[in-house]
């Protein structure tokens, strides 16, 4: 039996449900050295803002129990250089390319998407309304359902390409945000972005990262992410891309059972940059073991 791993996320057709999360694959070439991008579902490029951002000073990273905190501060090359230098390179890969946008104002979101919408290489946009590591945007929007609605509606007006809204777990009700995104024209949501966390050095009494707080990722957040996916799945009819501490094929199956149509692997790329290729094989094996012909049948099959 050769299980069919193809999935759809709304209008986005994927070879298999494995996407590589924004901020963990650079703009593509960085991860291509380790992973055959033509064997996975696709990649989500590093968050782009209109102008280049230098990002936060060190220290940007600290490891915590089964996880890590990061506060990179959306360091990126900006839209113009992305179009000029990164897109030609991305064009060579036979994989789905989702372009992640993180802006500091409503207008900047619309302008970024508008400038990039004509690029053939880009299959969809993921709108980061929930970066916890920049003071002038991101989380501010991610915490405000009206703002998320306004951004979604505004981006919808400037592109016909699929839009995915990346949701913050740092809110009272993630499904409320999913519902607003849906009503304003989003094709899918991805959940979850990192959780706000902090770590303090007990000897110096100083925060371990420059930004004081950072985004917690890795296996430590997986149960939270599974719960959020389940919540959205039960309350809102919108395709979900599950994210949060996924390390292997079994984790992918768990997110899909909870309601995800596809998933993103993130932090694991830092540790095992070939983990996504292994996960494809693990998923096949899971399907064979459980006599699943089409992996997409798994989505939302949780027995409650």
């Amino acid at each position, binding site marked *: 039996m050769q299980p069919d791993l193809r999935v759809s996320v709304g209008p986005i057709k994927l070879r298999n449900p494995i996407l590589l999360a924004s901020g963990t694959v650079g703009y593509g070439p960085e991860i291509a*050295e380790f992973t055959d991008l033509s064997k996975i579902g696709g990649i989500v490029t590093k968050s782009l803002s209109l102008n280049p951002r230098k990002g936060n*000073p060190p220290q940007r990273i600290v490891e915590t129990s089964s996880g890590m905190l990061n506060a990179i501060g959306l360091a990126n090359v900006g839209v113009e250089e992305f179009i000029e230098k990164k897109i030609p390179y991305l064009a060579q890969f036979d994989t789905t390319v989702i372009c992640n946008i993180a802006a500091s104002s409503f207008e900047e979101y619309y302008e970024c998407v508008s400038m990039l919408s004509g690029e053939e290489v880009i299959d969809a946009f993921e709108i980061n309304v929930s970066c916890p590591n920049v003071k002038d945007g991101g989380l501010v929007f991610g915490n405000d359902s009206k703002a998320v609605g306004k951004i979604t509606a505004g981006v919808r007006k400037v592109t016909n390409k699929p839009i995915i809204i990346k949701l913050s777990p740092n809110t009272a009700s993630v499904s409320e945000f999913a519902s607003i995104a849906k009503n304003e024209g989003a094709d899918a949501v991805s959940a979850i972005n990192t959780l706000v966390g902090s770590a303090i050095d007990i000897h110096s009494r100083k925060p371990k990262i420059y930004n004081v707080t950072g985004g917690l990722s890795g296996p430590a957040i997986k149960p939270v992410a599974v719960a959020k996916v389940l919540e959205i799945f039960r309350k809102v009819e919108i395709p979900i891309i599950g994210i949060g501490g996924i390390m292997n094929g079994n984790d992918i199956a768990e997110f899909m059972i909870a309601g995800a149509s596809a998933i993103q692997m993130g932090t694991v790329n830092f*540790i095992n940059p070939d983990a996504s290729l292994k996960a494809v094989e693990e998923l096949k094996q899971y399907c064979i073991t459980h006599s699943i012909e089409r992996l997409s049948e798994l989505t939302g099959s949780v027995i409650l």
Partner: protein
Amino acid sequence: MIISDAIVKDVQALSSSIFLMQLTAPEISSIIKPGQFLNIKADSLSFPLLRRPFSVCDVNGDSFSVMFDIHGLGTKLLSEKKQGDVLNLIGPLGNGFSTQGDFDLAIMIAGGLGIAPFPFLAKSFDKSVSQFLFYGARNNEYIVEYPGLIKPFIATDDGSLGEKGNVLDLLKNNKEIFNDKRVKLFVCGPTPMLRAIAEFALAEDLDCEVSTECAMACGFGICQGCPIESKIHPETYALVCKDGPVFNVKEVVI
């Protein structure tokens, strides 16, 4: 840069706090250069989650070694490894020291565990290049004897071994060795020491490379976790893992 399993050949305590681990990994051993590093997974579980970066200390045939002290759980687990254990690693990573160039005197300057890359570096210079090693540390516990390494000038903060004081003062007090020589400094140690020596090198117009360090998640440029201020492109950061860890002092702000 490859992902590879390596077999533990030996783990030896060089002092009460410093360990030397030898690993058999033929492919990596054949291509790694002095000053490059490896990112090693201390075990296969998800805690500790991230790999740990280590400079290559020495290479002998199909094996290489890394030197470390116990800093946390990752290095504690590594110190307890036994012969035959298998560790997964990624390497060689980053840019190492430039051993070729216009110099006939190589001065290696180590602070504490910063001695780690020098056994391999010392073997890599042309025969015509003469070498000195300056070695500073908190106390004699952090000064290790490494077989084959030239006899160092030693300074310790508490005077328990060698001169009392820091390694830069020790270097300044022995400046007569520079005489009529085309000198290049190779430096590895804690950031304040790198900064002091970089300032000295720039003021004296001496060619100087420093091996920097910074917390990082991946080690190959993807996480963007290890920025260092660039003098060449101040509008963006350089990355310690990919653009370094060895930099010329003219390239970065330490």
